[in-house]
């Protein structure tokens, strides 16, 4: 072989080696390693905090390819809650921590009066007899210890990190519930409850860049099921649970394009759409809830601008005849100042009994597009989120109805009635980097459309942010109020929009009711994935760069700790190149 040919051959080999299918070091599955996705389990409920989700799912990405694969892990949030300090203003707020608990706030009896001491506004043990597991006035972080001030620059949060495998307090059990291996470079994770009668409670969907697949994992009580026990595959999901890489799976011989990035799932969980960064395409998977089938690639929509990076599923709406509008997704792009509406369309033509239904049952089509004029440039849009509490309430009512054993058709009819009564247009939020801003808008009302909306957003404001906005996440925070009750008193839940600014290490909290940026959370390096646990008044933040989980207080009743990181799960680890 001639030397130049050898050089070329070596290059090809190196390029291919970027995505080793099975070689290399086995990953420590339970470890946080460049987390990119977080999702809460809405099916399994907390045993302590009424109505709160029990499990948190986290997708690791193995970004630096140190290992040959990555993992998805689950945490027990009831246990996480135990290691997260409880915020307080006064001792009465600490009832949930026992009779000895007092509030580490100025002026509280039992709290040292040293003027140089900085109170934590955490509930502590009044006995002040430091023992393993106890938070005391002298050691408000208990066995976890306080962070060195120098470390606070990179890893905010007063208390040191919590070991999720063996919490340092010695009393809390293992936070980690389960783990399973997946391909490298997962980009996100989404959870959906399975319909009544399914074999499993719920399902996770994980786009994986490394092998260009959609992983799917059935979940029951925080335990994963994706064929990981079907042989010697490092506790990784088996090939059945990786979809999109086998053209023979579908009659069109489609294959998932490279670089799958963002995904979302239609309200009923029947369709998964994934944006593919480098090809300007969006893949549609038809999700079969049977545990031996799963999602299958059914359509790839091309001809879109390059770098589609944000996608959000439309809420369900009903047409005047009472039928559901076809499912749809909004897509935003890095390279184009526009938002596209993609519809899942179904061929309903009467059959002759010949294989047509097996051919193309569903197709993803671009049904509309709208330019972004709101900003000076407008392109480089990142995350997109749709918020429609009214329609979500209809879905929740349906879920309750269906799970109660009522006739599904009756439940659907009730849902249709509920949806028909919704006239408010869904809110839409887009994080943009040119300039750094949050675009605030709503679906455009138009009486010329069958269901009164174009299902394309029009924006009515652009809010300035700091550089590097990436994702937009909806969630609730606790505010002083009267409608709900917990151990610290009464409260209300209010909607917020969280904009994660990866580059500037900030999370902006936008109050859509008052139309203002209400708070800014200072985070560690590389804030990326966020899951908001409104019932507990907490949010979980995956720090991509240093591979740990931050816990943010979202309870406004405690202003001293509101919108700050109050705990860290996992030891922060700097990427190898930045050490």
């Amino acid at each position: 072989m001639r030397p130049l040919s050898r050089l070329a051959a070596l290059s090809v080999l190196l390029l291919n080696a970027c995505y080793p299918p099975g070689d290399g070091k086995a990953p420590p599955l339970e470890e946080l390693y460049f987390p990119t996705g977080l999702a809460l389990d809405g099916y399994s409920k907390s045993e302590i905090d009424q109505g709160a989700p029990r499990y948190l799912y986290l997708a690791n990405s193995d970004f630096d390819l140190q290992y040959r694969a990555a993992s998805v892990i689950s945490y027990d949030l009831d246990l996480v809650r135990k290691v997260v300090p409880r915020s307080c203003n006064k001792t009465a707020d600490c009832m949930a921590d026992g009779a000895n608990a007092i509030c580490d706030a100025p002026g509280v009896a039992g709290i040292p009066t040293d003027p140089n001491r900085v109170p934590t506004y955490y509930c502590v043990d009044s006995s002040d007899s430091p023992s393993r597991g106890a938070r005391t006035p002298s050691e408000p972080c208990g066995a976890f210890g306080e962070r060195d001030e120098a470390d606070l620059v990179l890893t905010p949060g007063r208390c040191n990190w919590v070991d999720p495998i063996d919490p340092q307090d010695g009393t809390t059990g293992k936070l980690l519930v389960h783990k399973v291996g997946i391909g490298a470079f997962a980009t996100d994770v989404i959870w959906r409850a399975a319909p009544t009668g399914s074999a499993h409670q719920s399902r996770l969907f994980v786009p994986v860049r490394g092998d260009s697949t959609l992983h799917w994992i059935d979940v029951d009580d925080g335990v994963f099921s994706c064929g990981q026990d079907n042989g010697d595959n490092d506790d990784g999901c088996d090939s059945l649970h990786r979809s999109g890489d086998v053209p023979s799976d579908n009659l069109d011989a489609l294959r998932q394009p490279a670089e799958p990035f963002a995904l979302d799932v239609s309200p009923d969980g029947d369709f998964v759409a994934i944006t593919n960064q480098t090809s300007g395409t969006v893949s549609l998977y038809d999700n079969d809830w049977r545990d031996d089938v799963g999602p299958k690639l059914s359509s790839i929509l091309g001809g879109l601008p390059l770098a589609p990076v944000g996608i959000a599923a439309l809420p369900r709406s009903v047409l005047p005849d009472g039928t559901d509008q076809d499912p749809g997704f909004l897509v935003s792009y890095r390279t184009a100042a526009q938002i596209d509406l993609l519809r899942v369309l179904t061929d309903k033509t009467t059959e002759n009994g010949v294989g047509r239904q097996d051919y193309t049952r569903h197709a993803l089509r671009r049904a509309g597009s709208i330019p972004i004029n709101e900003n000076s440039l407008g392109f480089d849009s990142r995350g997109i989120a749709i918020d429609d509490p009214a329609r979500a309430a209809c879905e929740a009512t349906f879920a309750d109805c269906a799970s109660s054993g009522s006739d599904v058709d009756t439940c659907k009819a009730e849902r249709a009635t509920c949806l028909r009564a919704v006239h408010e247009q869904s809110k839409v939020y887009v994080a943009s980097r040119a300039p750094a801003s949050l675009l605030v808008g709503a679906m455009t009302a138009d009486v010329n459309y069958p269901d009164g909306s174009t299902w394309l957003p029009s924006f009515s404001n652009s809010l300035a942010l700091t550089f590097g906005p990436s994702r937009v996440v909806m969630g609730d925070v606790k505010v002083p109020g009267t409608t709900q009750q917990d151990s610290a008193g009464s409260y209300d839940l209010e909607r917020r929009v969280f904009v994660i600014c990866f580059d500037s290490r900030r999370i902006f909290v936008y109050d859509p009711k008052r139309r203002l940026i209400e708070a800014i959370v200072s985070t560690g390096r590389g804030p990326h994935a966020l899951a908001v646990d409104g019932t507990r008044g907490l949010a979980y933040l995956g720090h991509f760069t240093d591979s740990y989980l931050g816990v943010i207080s979202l309870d406004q009743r405690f202003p001293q700790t509101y919108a700050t990181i109050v705990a860290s799960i996992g030891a922060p680890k700097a990427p190898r190149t930045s050490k």
Partner: protein
Amino acid sequence: MKLFSRLLPSSFDPLKLAALGICAWAALLGSCSQTPITVNLHAMQSSENVSFVCHGIDNSPKGHKLDECPEYESATRHTLALVTQTATNEVAVVDLYAQSILDIDRTTPGYSFLRVGAKPGAIVTTPGGAASFVGVSGLGKNGIFALPTTCILPPGEGEPARDLTTWAACHLSSAPGDIAVLVDPSERETCLNAPPLRPPSHRVDDACKADLTAEAGPTGRRKLLVALPNEHKLVLLDAQRLLDQQPGSFGECEPEASFALDVDVPNIPLAPVIPDDLKPKESDMCAVTSYPAQPVSEPPTPGGFALMGDRVYVADLTRPLVHVLDVSDPCTDKELPPLLPRSYTMPDRVVTTSRLAVSPLSPGHKQFVYAIDQDDQPASVMVFDLARIAEHPGDPDFRTPVVFEGGPRQPNMAPDRVRFNASVKDVSFVMRDFPKPDPITGAGEFGISCEPDPNASGPGTEYQPNSDYTDGARPVNLRGLFGFALLTSGQIAVIDVEDFDQACRRPVTTNQSSSFVDLHGCWKDPTSAPYILNGQPTVTGESSCNIIETHRPRSASLSISSSATGIHAPSLRAFPQFSTPGSTVPLQKQPRMMATDFANPDGSGALLPAEVNINTQLYVHCTEDQLTARQPPCDGSAQLLGIDPKQDVVQNSLTLPLIEPRSYAQDEAPTLVFEGRLLTPDRTSGFLHFEEGASEGVVSDPDANFCGGAGVEDSDTIAERGTKLGIPAANLKAWSDAHADYVQITGDYPADDSPYWSVGKGQYCADPTRANKPEVNRDACISKFGGIDNLSNLYATRNLSILQAYAGQLTVQPRNCQGAACADTLAELACCFPSGTAYTVRASNQWVVGGTNGLHDIGSGANGRCVHTATCDLRKEHFERRAFEICDPLLPPETHQEQDPAYPDDLTKTITVTDFTCAVNDPNVGCVGASPDRPGTQNPRPGIPVLPGYPASPCIFENLTSRFVVYRGPQPSILGMGFNWQTSGGFLPQAMSLLPLSSTVSPQSLGYLPELGYLSVVDASTLGLVLFDLNSLGVVPPSPYY
């Protein structure tokens, strides 16, 4: 090393590599040294609001009024800008005189500003400039900080550093919103009805003094009116009392009064005051626009303030009203009847407002409130006419937004909104003048209107434009009252409110009538004589009397097309050009597109000559009589415009209506295409559904918006047009079927190697009824429906006539099919084009204007069916894009030869089939160009060219931007034949922009500094504070300050 050497070619010389490397390195070094990197350091971060203050070197606690600044001779007084920094909780100080940003603490690296306790929001300065007040918000940190002007500069030698302990401040129970400084003329220290207050504190530290009781400006005690949105109220604080707090303390603020904003909202339907041009003519058939009652459930939430005199206008973020407070006595709650934001186009919508501006009273005794409709998409501006409200104090209808005249000719503007392509972030008013000295008295008077009358004299005539438009009335001359709208995209739009020069911005011609508007939009002129004096115009000579319209964006240019000014009036670039997709058509056989004369709007029946500008040259259609009379414009100054299609030398042409310049976008390239597309681009999201054996199917595409978007007309809808064109009732059904729009499938089949053809239903496409017959059927599809190699010449079998059009679906049938063949063709179509192939919708047997505003009046009616709406919605009165051609009955019928079906085997036996006859009973006809059989007419007029009043005049096409007639040629028109032309001189709105300074901007607030004549814009992204000079509409260097 050995490994690398093995990878290199054997011919490689290491010495050569070394030499090459050295050269490359040298080149790299050289290139580095020639590329200096400029890094713009930004001192400001996330700027939001600004207040201006005059600071004197005397550092007087009494402060200085803004009009005392700057003092140029000895520079003892500087104008300072205080700019809030929301990311760092600071207030930046910019010295506009020294043209620099002040570093408050020079002992620390980087810029330091005035630190406040939390995120700063609103900032205001007292009238005398003694102190400024900043509202701050943050959980547990809500309050107001007082910044005495004596301490806003960097500390002098021996002075302590400026920090939080420098400022007096007080804590509020919730986050403050907007703040206004009110003046209590009674000079009471506290309001009479104030709750018990703490005894006044006495500052231990008096380093930063501010004495508001002695400051200049209006006499009276300074009070702060503060919005508390979360508590749904306003509170009143004494400003001096706040200043007297001990610096560094943060005690509770002590409101002297609290205002609940609980004015009664009329819970009754309201009726907008609609201008005549929006009132339906058939009022009995049309629902009258009204605003339904909007019961108030949300508590009031104060938003932005606007203060003028003894009135404060308060936006409400949750209720559909704008509060009006009488603050002549700030201590008492006198809430007046509110303004009532509503939406004319969406009457059910609850309209809430974010920010406001109130104008000063103009010389014309007009005063307006501009309010931002924060939920409009994009956010827009509503206008409330305070003078009109004052005239009808008891009528709430007059407190709704003004619905403007001229709406039917301004397709891009809502009739009751000032709307742009991006959201309005802030609004402001500016009233200014630069009076010219009276030639007699030598004195200049503010607010003199330009006088165009050539016979007049006096100071108003001094504002007439000069011959080269460098003086007098012109776009850049902002003399009068103007609105400014700051857009989120970085533009600052100028809005005409009361332009003192408006009377001189118009055509030379006049129209005294008050009953009709002439072709230039003029009426009610005081004189019939043209505005010319000694051969020179006394006005600008622009194309329209509507170049300036109240509350509409201002034009950036004179609407004139001349060699001196350029092309700024609606003009053609050249005569329209004909094109055909097939083989060349000789000129004599081509269809012709021709201008035609106008009917005189005075109703006399006379005609006015067609005229149009081709670039800067005027072309006019003049009759022999007119040429002989040499009356303008047929006096030889213009080129002749031919309108008779029978004259080969005459070029295709059209005229451009000049009534409303805003009808025109800047530069456009319209087309007129036979059977042109109504959907552009093709859609790929339509699915064809049909029941087996049915001859009709449904194209379903829920997002296509066939009615409001594409304006699809099915056979029922288009029948209304047939009636207006004079098609006899007996022929109307056939005519409608022939003219109903149709779907054209423009997509390709699944690929050759698609499994659809081998295992899917595609294997049976050639004969869907024979499911078990295996065939290779892609070829069969191609054979029947053709390929897409030539998109301009697709097979007619791909066409589906639209029987019924709905918002999201079309009921269709294969075009021109008969009997059972319809069902077969439909099945074949569905089989050959599965899964949403590309398609478009085309008009049938008519011409379609495209490439410009595709305006039509079709909307979604009952059950979602597409219907005409212009009858009741006069905003669409002039919307049109379909042209029906006029045929010449003197031409022979169009025929073709085909084989006689009676003799199928005899190839030589043919018959003549008539395709078209120019008669009203032919289903393909548009208008018949003459009526040779008109009773009593012995020698009928040829009827061509068609003029207003002629039998074929219903086929004269006119919309907002073009007027013409299409004459059918001796050779039939075919799909894709077209005319294309270009227009220029469209409306260009006047605007200032941040974008030349930076492409990434997030403008936050807008203000006016009348003392310097500057408009200020605060940008949160990159620019900080930007100042615009209203004389040049350019940026004032060295701003931006960032």
